[in-house]
């Protein structure tokens, strides 16, 4: 048995380590004896070699999603891609209309881009998910208007890991001449994506969620039919004018290599992750008052978001000294509000406060999962012994029948 190293990283949705194979390749694009030239330099081999590296990386990113390399625009990450896609498409098409549809469970990069557009006079519809986290297509159709120009629906949710049916949503959008943006930061390399098969017009990617470096991402911009967006970053006219700024060769090479490896290893990784996640969930199955948040079937393999009722998430994490996980509870400052994603599912606030998110990844092991189960069970038992709500539950008192003094 190998030595178990702690703390154990179980927060792969927050970020992943760079795969050593990726890091090794990146190192060759930095130092004086490496390929450090500016890819935009046309007059010497330093520039040409860098440009070749960028071209190869672009092809690798495009290949993972079966796109044309010319449809890939480099950005600093999915946050920037979301901003560029949403504001860029909304601005470019404002004469056609100013109504946008999105969901309450989107990442803040999408929601806050929409908020900004609201300040500029756009109207946004924020749809509730169903209780399992998935979009109700009928509800989506029902809010489409003549002046709807853009819809932004994420592929995989970062908190609960549910997979939206972007194929079906794309069909609806195309029929209604709505530009469709998808935030795929959490799905690339985890769920097969085939742009030939999807009526998605804009798609956001990030490298650091799939074993590439932080600070680099991409926006897919469809060529057929051609989607036009207004640049948000102005300058030297890089990336066909859509995003100026000297290309970060080493970052781009890292993202390209990460995407290449993802294409090769996705099927194998997913199979392993599914086994590990099932093992993790099975480790909690016999406990009372445990709830999985979000649909368990339409879900990426590495995600388990689970609530241990009557135990508060932040104190739970405090007990899990050997585990790096995250919680939907936010017992801080002015905002005592738990995760907006869990609330949007219609989960009561107490269950949202009691949630933990385990996200497994390429370097997770069976031993780590077993240790996580042991630690979590111990902590939940300890905190339930401390919890007045647990006592009341055990006495058969309906907690919702009590008038609590909100504070």
């Amino acid at each position, binding site marked *: 048995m190998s030595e178990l190293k702690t703390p154990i990283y179980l927060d792969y949705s927050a970020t992943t380590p760079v795969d050593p194979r990726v890091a090794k390749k990146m190192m060759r694009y930095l130092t004086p004896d490496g390929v450090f030239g500016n890819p935009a330099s046309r007059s010497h081999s330093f520039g040409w070699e860098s440009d070749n590296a960028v071209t190869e990386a672009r092809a690798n990113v495009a290949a993972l999603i079966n796109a044309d390399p010319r449809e890939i625009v480099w950005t600093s990450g999915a946050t920037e891609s979301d901003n560029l896609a949403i504001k860029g498409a909304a601005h470019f098409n404002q004469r056609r209309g100013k109504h946008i549809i999105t969901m309450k469970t989107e990442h803040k990069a999408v929601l806050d881009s929409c908020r900004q557009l609201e300040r500029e006079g756009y109207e946004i519809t924020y749809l509730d998910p169903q209780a399992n986290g998935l979009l109700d297509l009928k509800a989506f159709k029902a809010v489409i208007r003549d002046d709807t120009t853009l819809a932004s629906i994420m592929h995989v949710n970062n908190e609960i890991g549910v997979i939206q049916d972007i194929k079906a949503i794309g069909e609806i959008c195309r029929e209604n001449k709505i530009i469709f943006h998808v935030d795929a930061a959490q799905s690339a390399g985890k769920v097969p994506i085939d742009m030939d098969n999807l009526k998605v017009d804009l798609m956001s990617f990030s490298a650091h969620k799939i074993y590439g470096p932080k600070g680099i991402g991409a926006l897919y911009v469809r060529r057929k039919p051609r989607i036009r967006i207004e640049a948000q970053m102005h300058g030297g006219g890089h990336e066909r004018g859509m995003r100026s700024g000297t290309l970060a060769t080493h970052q781009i090479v890292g993202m390209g290599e990460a995407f290449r490896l993802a294409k090769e290893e996705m099927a194998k990784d997913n199979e392993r992750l599914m086994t590990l996640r099932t093992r993790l969930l099975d480790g909690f199955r016999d406990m009372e008052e445990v709830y999985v948040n979000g649909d368990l079937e339409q879900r990426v393999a590495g995600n388990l978001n689970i609530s241990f009722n009557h135990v508060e998430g932040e*104190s739970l994490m*405090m007990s899990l000294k050997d585990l790096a996980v995250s919680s939907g509870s936010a*017992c801080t400052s002015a905002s005592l509000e738990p995760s907006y994603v869990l609330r949007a599912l219609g989960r009561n606030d107490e269950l949202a*406060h009691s949630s933990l998110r385990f996200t497994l990844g390429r370097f997770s092991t069976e031993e780590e999962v077993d240790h996580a189960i042991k630690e979590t069970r111990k902590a939940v038992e300890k905190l339930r012994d401390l*919890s007045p*709500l647990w006592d009341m539950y055990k006495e058969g008192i309906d907690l919702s029948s009590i008038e609590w003094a*909100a*504070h």
Partner: protein
Amino acid sequence: MAYGNKVIDHYENPRNVGILDKDAKNIGTGMVGAPACGDVMKLQIEVDDDGIIKDAKFKTYGCGSAIASSSLLTEWVKGKTLDEAKEIKNTDIAKELELPPVKVHCSVLAEDAIKAAIDDFQSKQ
């Protein structure tokens, strides 16, 4: 969230966890907070004939600072008269536990809990 040593100590070794008979005449029970807000504190005191708090027990659902605040409070109130216990201020708790500003509400809840327990005891007399 990084916690101070005192919070961690109380969290890991909570003092006076337990339940007293809430129907007994010499017991006062205070339960404050709300599950939806992420913390509920239940504090119980046992008061002797001289009006001195002989024993105190707590159960808390909440973050580490909430648990530590209630644990510390049970230590402080034991041996005090009801009037002395009423004088305990949330700022004293926050200071002793070195709570960061975002966690001060936990100490406020603890102050509310002892006041509620004393009220409950007095209403029974």
